[in-house]
């Protein structure tokens, strides 16, 4: 076994500075005072710290590593993303996964450590890491190449992949309307201002396009969880508008709605149509499978990686437009035309 060697965390602790500072000194960046620079160099010497230069292919300055950064609370769609990355990056490039947690600044620190220690060629950031403004700012100032998967634009990256949540929700409403539904309940997936809830926007736009007036009493608040979906369903069921369909903004909440319906003896989809925003594996774990709208993450990741690798050889000031991804509906057995007279 090799003897234990110093890590960047130990260097930072010994020098009494942030990881970011260690990283700046090692990469000869500006913005560090001469005194601090010397303190860090002393700690590096004392601890015999050596960043992982052998991770690079020695014949070139490229490391041939892509790093995928996501939140520890991420769900299984990460695995789909990894498949997409692997198929686009090929056998010559390898993937580091960094599952982060904690405050936004803790995430910045973790990514700094990753960049300094393993020197990936580029990063692929999944939400909510992709929406971490201090991180994006730091990557831009360091000139790190990265791809973002998010519902909105942020930072200077030339590789932005936009997931159009509003369009997805609108499509689902359009689908329900095409089945004959007009009273459609909606369960929001998180707290926060309505103006930032893209799925709610999409729901409203879908109604507007169908000439159905928006009824605020048909919108309930959930928090993404199963229990909140079941509770919201109970509130909607006592609504005087009597919704014939419920659209939940997360898969788990939709399963909660199904559970509520089961307890009340409501037959699905004859007496109530239920559908979700998500398209996770959960939708396939019930019978009949849940009608859902969501993104093809494997395909999205492939596109992101191809763009990242193209941009690597890209010279010039022109920034390519973001790639926009539309969601697709996967019809299951939980939606149908409303029963006549209901």
């Amino acid at each position: 076994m090799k003897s234990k060697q110093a890590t960047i965390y130990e260097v930072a602790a010994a020098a009494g500075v942030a990881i970011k500072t260690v990283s700046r000194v090692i990469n000869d960046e500006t913005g560090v005072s001469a005194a601090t620079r010397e303190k860090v160099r002393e700690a590096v010497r004392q601890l015999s710290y050596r960043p992982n230069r052998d991770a690079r292919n020695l014949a070139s300055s490229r490391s041939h590593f892509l790093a995928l950064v996501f939140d520890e609370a991420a769900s299984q769609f990460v695995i789909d993303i990894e498949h997409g990355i692997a198929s686009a990056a090929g056998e010559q490039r390898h993937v580091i996964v960094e599952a982060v947690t904690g405050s936004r600044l803790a995430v910045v620190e973790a990514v700094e450590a990753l960049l300094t220690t393993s020197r990936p060629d580029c990063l692929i950031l999944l939400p909510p890491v992709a929406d971490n403004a201090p991180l994006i700012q730091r990557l831009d100032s360091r000139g790190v190449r990265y791809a973002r998967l998010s519902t909105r634009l942020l930072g200077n990256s030339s590789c932005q992949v936009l997931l159009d949540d509003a369009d997805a929700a609108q499509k689902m409403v359009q689908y329900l309307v095409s089945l004959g539904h007009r009273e459609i309940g909606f369960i929001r997936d998180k707290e926060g201002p309505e103006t930032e809830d893209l799925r709610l926007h999409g729901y409203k736009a879908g109604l507007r396009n169908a000439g159905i007036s928006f009824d605020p009493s048909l919108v309930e608040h959930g928090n993404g969880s199963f229990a909140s979906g079941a509770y919201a369903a109970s509130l909607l069921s006592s609504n005087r508008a009597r919704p014939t369909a419920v659209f939940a903004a997360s898969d788990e909440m939709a399963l909660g709605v199904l559970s509520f319906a089961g307890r009340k003896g409501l037959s699905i989809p004859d007496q109530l149509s239920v559908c979700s925003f998500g398209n996770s594996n959960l939708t396939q774990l019930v019978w009949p499978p849940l009608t859902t709208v969501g993104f093809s993450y494997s395909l999205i990741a492939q596109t992101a990686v191809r763009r990242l690798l193209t941009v690597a050889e890209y010279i010039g000031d022109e920034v390519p437009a973001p790639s926009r991804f539309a969601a697709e509906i996967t019809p299951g057995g939980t939606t149908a035309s409303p029963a006549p007279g209901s």
Partner: protein
Amino acid sequence: MNSSVTIEKVAQISGVSAKTVSRVLRHKGSGYSESTRAKVEAVAAQLGYSPNGSARALASSQSFLIALIFDNKNAGYVLELQLGAAHRCRQSGYHLVIKSVGDGVDAVERVRGLLDATRLHGAILAPPLCEDRAVVDLLVSRGVPCVRIAPSADRPSTQSIRIDDRGAARAATRHLLSLGHDRIAFIGGPARGPAAAERRAGFEEAIASSSRPVAAIIRLGDFTFKSGLDHGMELLGHDEGPTAIFAANDEMAFGVIAAANQVRLGIPHDVSVMGFDDSPAARVVRPQLTTVRQPVREMADAAVAQLLAEKAVSPTRLPMEPELVIRGSTGFARSVP
């Protein structure tokens, strides 16, 4: 030292396997004759080969990389492994490289590609890939410390992390017996997986030691929702069906629940369903799934810890016991008041 000389070259000229070369040059134990030892050493000296040469050439730097190599199709399981391993890596200033080798075809070549391009501090092999001799031998011959997750048996020069699958399956089956079930079906996993065999053995042991006569029905699935659904439909589609079904993983148990819903049997009133894993979805299906909590994240965390330990951890089995998690999908057999 000539760095272009590989262990394979030494092995080829010596007429022995790369693994033997590795063992001889690292002065590891026995398993080769005196004449083999002499020949390998002579060839290595002549070619100027020294084990772990690339690592020595780069002795001025160090590797902060640990690889997780897998061919497992269960996305939930693989994600848990990644989260456990990445967590411990981050805490220790290391980073996790993942390598999916698909369905095992060309697994050796793909792992070789990873080894050629990187220098690893160590590697973790997930099941069922951990059973692949060629992959294990390659890692050993390259001098990459290796921890195997849930292997069927220990292998020299590697470490392993295991849980007591058999004991857990026994406990789960006893739970069903204690509820009065006497027609119990077991839907096992594919024959290739060591964990599947252990879980089946645990089920059979519990049935055999029951004080009253119990009819046991065995079916083989492939750990997918679909196979649980298909076997569930077949088992529950007639009046003489089992009163309890123990599926060797959660995905198949979800399939059984779906089958029960289709044939309009209530859970647990008409049939009890038991899983194995305690995946996140176990709390989201209705009724919630009674299952065995497999500490997958902790196992991956412990695997990284073993690789980072100064010395090999002994014993190689960590005392991580799976735990029976009783929820709403199991209940008394119908005949019991």
